[in-house]
């Protein structure tokens, strides 16, 4: 689409989609990745590695079920270890997908059209990974359904005043609505695959999945309405989910957790880590599948800017945490901040400051924002930084609370690492499968941003 406003060269980094594309060519380009492209050695190798990592979650869970949560590094006082750290990390990663698909839709940002499908898939897979941790952490995961309110012979009902129960509702709603939003968005593209495929089994499978979508104007009108409503519902939902996650901490009275800044600070951190993960995934995908005419420099530039902006919000959060610790005049809060900066886990804290505050400052430079390689490395560092942030929040507060007699050190065991690495394998496996069986870019929304898709008509007369 043409630039509506002339931008100077220092800002403008190119069009949102390559101008040589037509309505038919974008359909074929994205569809053929699924329908025509042969399975390459690189993809097989990648999937192999992902499946290899996935074994970590299998082995780790089996050992955990046999022996109990004692195989993890958790102890008293560190009752929350890797499970909660990873849960918050994964959930946060998921949030960028909803932000891109819902918030940017409401804000009418056409650049989201090329990346929303992929980001939403990332959301779903990240929430799946996240959801495993609380269930494993219960110690008796076969009783996880006790978290749900249902009539039972024990006459027990869950505690609706507990943030942990709010988590159950928030995360399951989030997974459901994300899946519904994703599937609704897929319908027209599945119809495209059904109609362009030449293989019988593909026609049958995509035919069933597309539910007989035929692109009727009467359908599109309701479809657009439903999409807009889902976006409007997903927007407060995404904010509420990470707010509830932060309540797990903020509602307790542990020093460093009991603060009002947690909800906004967690939401900003979630978007920050999520955008970093979108960059981590999109930069290689764009290269390997030759999609740089659809996922253009404009996209990388915009995502880098959002990363920088949310990174600054997160930096503000860190500064305020330290200030609250000092200004509370509470000796436990003050000690917690001091201990966080100079105690046993100080290296983690300073590594986190380096990853999350110092590194993103490079994104002020347009040159770096438009260099995929450097951007990719920065995005990885931010991902690590956000994981460290959750580690620091969980562990530094727990390992030294009010009574020195109850202090203790936390160190993860090999089983903690196995499950964590295993979920990364699960995430990668799902991504590898996704790019081969479903269109990774929303084709019908790409068509909408093409100049040839514009209508030049007024009262039944062609105006151009």
């Amino acid at each position, binding site marked *: 689409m043409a630039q509506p406003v002339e931008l100077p060269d220092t800002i403008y980094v190119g069009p949102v989609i390559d101008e040589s594309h037509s309505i038919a060519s974008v*359909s074929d380009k994205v569809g053929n990745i699924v329908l025509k492209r042969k399975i390459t050695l690189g993809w097989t190798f990648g999937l192999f590695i992902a499946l290899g990592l996935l074994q970590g979650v299998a082995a780790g869970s089996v050992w955990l079920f046999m022996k109990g949560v004692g195989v993890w590094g958790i102890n008293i006082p560190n009752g929350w270890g890797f499970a909660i750290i990873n849960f918050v990390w994964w959930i946060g990663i998921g949030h960028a997908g909803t932000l891109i698909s819902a918030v940017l839709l409401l804000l009418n940002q056409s650049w989201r059209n090329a990346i929303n499908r992929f980001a939403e898939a990332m959301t779903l897979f990240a929430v799946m990974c996240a959801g495993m941790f609380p269930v494993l952490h219960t110690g008796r995961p076969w009783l996880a359904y006790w978290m749900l309110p249902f009539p039972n012979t024990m006459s027990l009902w869950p505690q609706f005043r507990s943030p942990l129960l709010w988590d159950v509702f928030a995360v399951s709603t989030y997974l459901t609505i994300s899946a519904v*939003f994703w599937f609704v968005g897929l319908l027209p593209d599945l119809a495209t695959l059904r109609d362009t495929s030449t293989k019988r089994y593909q026609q049958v499978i995509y035919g069933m999945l597309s539910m007989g979508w*035929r692109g009727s104007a009467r359908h*599109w009108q309701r479809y657009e*309405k439903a999409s807009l*409503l889902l976006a409007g519902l997903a927007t407060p939902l995404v904010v509420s989910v990470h707010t509830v996650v932060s309540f797990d901490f903020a509602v307790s009275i542990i020093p460093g957790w009991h603060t009002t800044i947690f909800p906004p600070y967690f939401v900003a951190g979630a978007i920050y880590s999520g955008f970093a993960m979108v960059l981590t995934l999109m930069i290689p995908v764009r290269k390997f599948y030759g999609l740089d005419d659809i996922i253009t420099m404009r996209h990388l530039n915009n995502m880098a800017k959002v990363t920088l902006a949310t990174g600054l919000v997160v930096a503000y959060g860190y500064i305020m945490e330290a200030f609250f610790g000092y200004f509370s005049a509470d000796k436990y809060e003050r000690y917690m901040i001091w201990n966080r900066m100079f105690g046993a886990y100080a290296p983690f804290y300073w590594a986190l400051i380096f990853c999350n505050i110092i590194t993103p400052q490079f994104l002020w430079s347009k040159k770096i924002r438009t260099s995929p390689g450097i951007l990719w490395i920065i995005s990885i560092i931010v991902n690590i930084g956000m994981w460290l942030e959750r580690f620091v929040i969980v562990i530094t507060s727990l390992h030294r609370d009010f009574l020195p007699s109850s202090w203790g050190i936390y160190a993860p065991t090999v089983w903690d690492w196995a499950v964590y690495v295993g979920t990364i394998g699960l995430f990668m496996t799902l991504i590898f499968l996704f790019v081969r069986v479903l269109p990774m870019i929303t084709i019908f929304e790409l068509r909408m941003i093409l100049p040839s898709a514009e209508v030049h008509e007024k009262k039944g007369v062609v105006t151009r």
Partner: protein
Amino acid sequence: MSSHAKETAPSLYGLMAEFATPTELVVAARRTREAGFRKFDAFSPYPMHELDEAMDLHDNRVAKFTFIGGLCGCVGGFSLASWCAAVAYPLNIGGRPLISVPMFIPVTFECTILLAGLTAAISMLVMNGLPSPYHPVFNVDPFAGASRSKFFLCIESADPKFDRHATENFLAGLNPSEIAEVAP
């Protein structure tokens, strides 16, 4: 469909015209509506708001159903929390109220979003008559392009103004690239 209906069913579902550009489709749709046809539909590979306006489409029922769904979720979520905490499993914690409204808000909110979102998606599908694996328009071979890059307009034989030849002449006047009969 019963065998009786099959016997009396018309041998023609309608007439379909193919257009090369979105503008031509919108012009055709507007003229078709202005000519008095009501049982017709336009098909495009992406949503076009100009088409909604040209065909006078303003079905807002999805929004209404979504509101009702959200309201049910809201009342249901709060009632569930209150009933569990006050009736099914009351816990007296320092004499605090059993129905602790602020603590029930997160669950109430999530239930609202859950039911509203599901209603939005399901009501859209139901009102669109989906899933419908078979539809007469699929009988026209070039129609496969409707999901890729082509634009179509179909006037149904069920329209009272429909006449096999007059309607074909009308469609021919709209500058289509192709006109085809749609088998039922």
